[in-house]
């Protein structure tokens, strides 16, 4: 088992009366030196506001945990709860609230850990029975006195029916590290060996995890460095010698009430230290925010949130040990076909890999992490005057879309999103990390562009993007009396339109159609001229046309939390033309009331310039993608089946049916054969199977 969590962690306690800028400097230095936490004590009279100092430090650091000690009393409890919740959202998992003595806990249930301090019996009783941690102090009374306190804490925990290991034990130190032994009692004045000898029993026998230096003079920065260099490694070694491997890194345990909600078949305690810190399990406070996706309710047993490629590899290794469970891979959480959440299984969420950087200004080459959202990509490209077609919804993640296709608002002008891909980096099922381009692993590069979810977890994409000045953007609403005739007309006008224009159509059962169209031009005359034939499709009930940056369109919709419930029912089909047959079957479907969402995205143009063999997305002859969503799969299918004979294929991203019958619809025979061969080579045990697995059983229906 990999055990990367440090057994002995270090902290620093700031001086509430000192210069605040110096305090911030120390916190930054501590983080750089690998310290785990910084304690900001309660206010001194006429002194700085500790909460503001803490929030500022949060903004200037990336990792170090922030302990707000002595928050009780200063502010109204309800307001403190809000403030704590805010900081916990801004810097997830980094905030701890400290409560002194036996004062009331500030937040019964805000999900932020509470550490208590205080040496009296009632303090220890309360800490042991309820808190997530205890902060003790080493002072002139020596370590024996402290050991007695730690025993009382254990006893209180046991009396309350808790596993004492649930409590994090943090000790602030006193003393000066010197080169020569000095006879002082109590405080740890003396050389590093003496510190190590005195502190090791606290770690080994009492489970102390963290030692905190007090930064109360000008030499604090030096002392921080010396302690990290001269004491910590020796202490770690001494403790590791005395204890079984992994024992220290696993501390503190999650509380019993949290552990009680664990799901069977998951080796929670075997999670490598690299992933443990950010993993979320069902009893954790953060679970509500990660369990479901945008459209799908879920209840996974463990959500892993790797922050580096190495951690993705660790997560894949962990998943390989859990092949008996569902595995979901998540980037932006907007999946429809992909099961990026599940019930009782694992989720590997690479949302943290969300960097967007320009690699080469001249070639307009950008590198984008899978966790970025398309709205963020658009914003990042805008200052350069660039844009990359993605989809019609800015909240969608890069990882899911760029491994499947990407039918977007600049599609007829720019092609699919995958057509701009120049390189992709993935962690494969065996944990290795590869870069695929036209020349390196070309077969994998081909496969990722349409069936990427089958082959690994993409950790970075490199795209060549286009210069796009502002664009024309129209929202037109029509009154539609004869939907079939309207659809045929819409098809005719779209096919005749120049490829600058990419329209999307949403039809309701109520006789209203909404058209959203982008025109890749900032010339009002061009925009109006290209929209004109659309405006004449039917009587307009509403119209709006603006010239705006592409990023403004991508950021048009506000963010919504990912609180999907149940399973989405979505059907996807591609057609080569909006023939009267397609139009009639669509109108019947609309009329049935079985679908609440019916959308056409136009294709063709540059999408059709690419030969079918070039990418695993092969349906290059499609003119439209049709999506229908409803509440009940059987009802939807009763009417959707009327459309099926007219479909030339499907775009997997909009298909929620997990049946193997759907796989050949997304991949024509030769594509599927190639994909299966590569799947057998790269993922022989079918680890990746949450999204149109090509290794799935042979279709039950008509074969391809």
């Amino acid at each position: 088992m990999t055990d990367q969590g440090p057994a002995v962690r270090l902290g620093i306690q700031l001086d509430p009366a000192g210069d605040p800028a110096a305090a911030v400097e120390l916190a930054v230095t501590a983080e750089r030196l690998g310290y785990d936490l910084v304690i900001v004590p309660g206010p001194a009279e006429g002194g700085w506001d500790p909460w503001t100092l803490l929030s500022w430090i949060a903004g200037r650091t990336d990792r170090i945990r922030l302990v707000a000690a002595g928050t009780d009393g200063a502010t109204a409890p309800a307001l403190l709860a809000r403030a704590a919740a805010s900081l916990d959202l801004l810097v997830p998992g980094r905030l701890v609230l400290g409560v002194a003595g036996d004062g009331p806990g500030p937040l019964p249930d805000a999900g932020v850990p509470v550490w208590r301090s205080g040496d009296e019996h009632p303090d220890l009783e309360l800490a042991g029975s309820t808190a997530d941690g205890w902060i003790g102090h080493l002072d002139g009374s020596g370590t024996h006195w402290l050991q007695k306190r730690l025993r009382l804490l254990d006893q209180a925990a046991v009396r309350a029916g808790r596993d004492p290991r649930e409590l994090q034990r943090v000790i602030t130190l006193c003393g000066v590290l010197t080169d020569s032994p000095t006879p002082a009692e109590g405080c740890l004045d003396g050389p590093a060996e003496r510190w190590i000898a005195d502190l090791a029993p606290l770690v080994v026998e009492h489970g102390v995890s963290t030692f905190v230096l007090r930064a109360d003079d000008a030499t604090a920065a030096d002392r921080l460095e010396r302690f990290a260099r001269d004491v910590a490694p020796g202490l770690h070694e001494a403790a590791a010698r005395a204890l079984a491997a992994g024992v220290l890194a696993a501390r503190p345990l999650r509380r019993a009430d949290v552990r009680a909600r664990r799901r069977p078949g998951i080796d929670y305690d075997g999670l490598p230290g690299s992933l443990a810190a950010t993993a979320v399990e069902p009893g954790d406070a953060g679970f509500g925010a990660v369990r479901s996706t945008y459209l799908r309710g879920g209840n996974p047993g463990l959500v892993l949130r790797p922050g580096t490629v190495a951690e993705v590899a660790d997560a894949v290794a962990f998943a390989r040990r859990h092949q008996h469970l569902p595995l979901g891979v998540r980037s932006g959480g907007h999946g429809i076909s992909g099961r990026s959440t599940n019930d009782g299984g694992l989720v590997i969420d690479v949302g943290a890999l969300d960097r967007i950087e320009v690699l080469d200004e001249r070639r307009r080459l950008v590198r984008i992490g899978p966790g970025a959202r398309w709205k963020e990509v658009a914003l990042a490209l805008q200052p350069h005057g660039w844009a990359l077609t993605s989809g019609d919804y800015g909240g969608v993640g890069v990882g899911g879309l760029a491994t499947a296709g990407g039918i977007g608002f600049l599609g007829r002008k720019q092609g699919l999103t995958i057509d701009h891909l120049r390189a992709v980096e993935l962690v494969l099922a065996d944990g290795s990390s590869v870069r695929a381009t036209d020349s390196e692993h070309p077969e994998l590069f081909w496969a990722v562009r349409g069936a990427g979810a089958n082959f690994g977890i993409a950790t970075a994409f490199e795209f060549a993007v286009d210069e796009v000045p502002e664009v024309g953007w129209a929202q037109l609403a029509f009154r539609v009396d004869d939907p079939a005739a309207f659809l045929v007309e819409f098809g005719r006008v779209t096919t005749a339109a120049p490829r600058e224009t990419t329209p999307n159509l949403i039809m309701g059962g109520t006789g209203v159609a909404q058209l959203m169209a982008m025109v890749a031009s900032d010339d009002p005359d061009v925009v109006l001229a290209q929209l004109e034939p659309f405006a004449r499709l039917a009587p307009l009930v509403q119209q709006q046309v603006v010239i705006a940056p592409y990023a403004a369109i991508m950021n048009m919709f506000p963010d919504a939390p990912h609180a999907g419930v149940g399973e989405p029912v979505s059907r996807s089909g591609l057609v080569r033309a909006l023939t009267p047959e397609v139009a009639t079957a669509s109108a019947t479907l609309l009329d049935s009331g079985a679908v609440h969402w019916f959308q056409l995205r136009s294709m063709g143009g540059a999408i059709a310039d690419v030969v079918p063999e070039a990418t695993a997305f092969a349906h290059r002859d499609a003119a439209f993608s049709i999506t229908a969503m409803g509440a009940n799969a059987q009802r939807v299918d009763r009417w959707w089946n009327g459309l099926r004979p007219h479909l030339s294929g499907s775009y997997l991203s909009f298909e929620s049916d997990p049946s193997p019958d759907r796989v050949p619809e997304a991949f024509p025979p030769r594509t599927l054969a190639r994909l299966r061969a590569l799947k057998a080579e790269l993922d022989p045990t079918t680890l990746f199977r949450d999204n149109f697995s090509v290794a799935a059983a042979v279709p039950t229906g008509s074969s391809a």
Partner: protein
Amino acid sequence: MTDYGHDLLFGTFVTPASARPQHAVEQAVVAERAGLDLVTFQDHPYVATFHDTWTLIAYAAARTERIRLTANVTNLPLRLPAVLARTVATADVLSGGRIELGLGAGAFWDGIEAMGGRRLGPGESIEALEEAVTIIRGLWDVEQRGGLTVAGRHYAVHGAERGPAPAHRPGIWIGAYKPRILRTTGRIGDGWLPSVQYLPGGVTDLAGMNGHIDEGAAAAGRDPRDIRRFLNLAGDFGATSRGFLQGPPDQWVEELTDLTLTYGTSGFVLASDDTATTELFAAEVAPAVRSEVARERG
């Protein structure tokens, strides 16, 4: 019709929604990068889906270098003045003098009560505001010897130790609409921070409201120019004109220039949660209004 002759400030008014926790912070960074002077955040502590505004401000201030920040406006009934004074001073020192204090007497009293605040009548809340300002400025004033004692009806401090001192003198900008609080603003405020959508008669109301402020200032022996006139704006950019601040940037420039010359408005704070709008405002509107105003003032 008065132009108070202030230099112009431009900023944004950002919703502190916490659903995407970093969004409001990014908007502060965007405003700074776009060259705006100011980023401000609503403060509605009783709205569960919002960040705590002063936590957000401290954090956002740490992620920026140059831009000034404030709550727009701080909900006083839910903040202890002594704590607020310390919060502002601490953030001001850490940020090198970039924090201002937008302050309101309170609105949405149901929400305030639900959070444990006390419901006050209009007269009382103005009185409370005035006491709070006395306490806040008193605590900032470390030059004064001895502790601070203010025996107010709503807030009282007895020999409170002064400090910490802020790095600069944070402006106290008051959100006010009715005559009495406008006169109070004239007497004690450094700025006036109303929102255009709460002006019953639209921008033409500014003339009368300025009058009340000026009257309050005069009664206290102050120069009306001691109170900077801000305005929170709502608008949309578009190709064609559809109303006040709804249209192309040129139209905005004309309308805002007119506000400065006619009503003395010198701080324009645009409600914007999106990068494109903020950038457009900073690039196409702010500099043009500045030069138009300079030209007209001669």
